[in-house]
């Protein structure tokens, strides 16, 4: 796809994971700044989703199959928002841990997306 975008999303996800992991070790729930961070990461992944769909519509084909590629794009777009909503309901350090876990999962999905596209 666009390698720079995949790399940026993956690094941003790792940063978010480290930040929320830090909040977890300090026994803090997710706060407004964390949610802004989640919004930035989610926005990057949404851009990636749009770019991916546009590339597919333009006739490009991922190396490992279109269905798998779209499934991973959707999974990547849902990961951080879903974890964010769960941390809204869990106002303890474990809410931070949930977001950190979601961000790590997103980073793994980005690596897989890179492979699936055949970069």
């Amino acid at each position, binding site marked *: 796809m666009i390698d720079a975008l995949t790399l940026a999303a993956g690094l941003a996800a790792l940063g978010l994971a480290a930040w929320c992991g830090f909040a977890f070790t300090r026994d803090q729930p997710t706060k407004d700044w964390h949610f802004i961070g989640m919004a930035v990461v989610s926005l990057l992944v949404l851009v990636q989703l749009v770019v991916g769909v546009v590339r597919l519509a333009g006739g490009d084909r991922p190396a490992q*199959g279109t*269905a*798998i590629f779209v*499934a991973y794009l959707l*999974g990547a777009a849902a*990961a951080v928002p*879903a*974890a964010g*909503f*769960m941390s*809204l*309901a*869990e106002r*303890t350090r*474990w*809410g931070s*841990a*949930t977001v950190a*876990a*979601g961000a790590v*999962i997103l980073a*793994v999905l980005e690596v897989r997306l890179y492979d699936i596209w055949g970069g």
Partner: protein
Amino acid sequence: MAEYRSASDATAAEAAAETAAETDGTAGGATAPAAARPRFDLGQGPGRLLVWLYGVFTVAAASRSIVQTILDFDRAPLAYLLSAAAAVVYAFITYSLVRGGEQARRAALVCCAAELAGVLIVGTWTLVEPSAFPDSTVWSGYGMGYLFIPVLLPLSAMVWLRRAPRG
């Protein structure tokens, strides 16, 4: 976001009320209504993290088996059926953690034991006889392709299910 929160709270309250009603029915109304509330809050604190991870693995295992079954079932039917079975176990544990209560706690413990046995058996099987698995499952090589989370998850879930606070 606040709307979402109140909506989910309402659903949780409804679920709690239902569980309470169930418990009342089986107990014959002998216990006081307050005591009939679910005693184990399995989806709180560390449990929330487990709900999230089990939810993610439900989606991962289910979508993996669905996509592969549709695209080329004949290539590795055993692997795809095992992924589907894993998805069912994960879904049930997720549901039990969210539901809470003593019954759900016991059911989840049994399922975690089954999950751990599955990971160990399938993991060993894939190492001993790789030819039986032309394509890998979630549990291949003890979950190596998934950062070994499949083998760590049931262990941590069993610890949490034993220690979960009485609500």
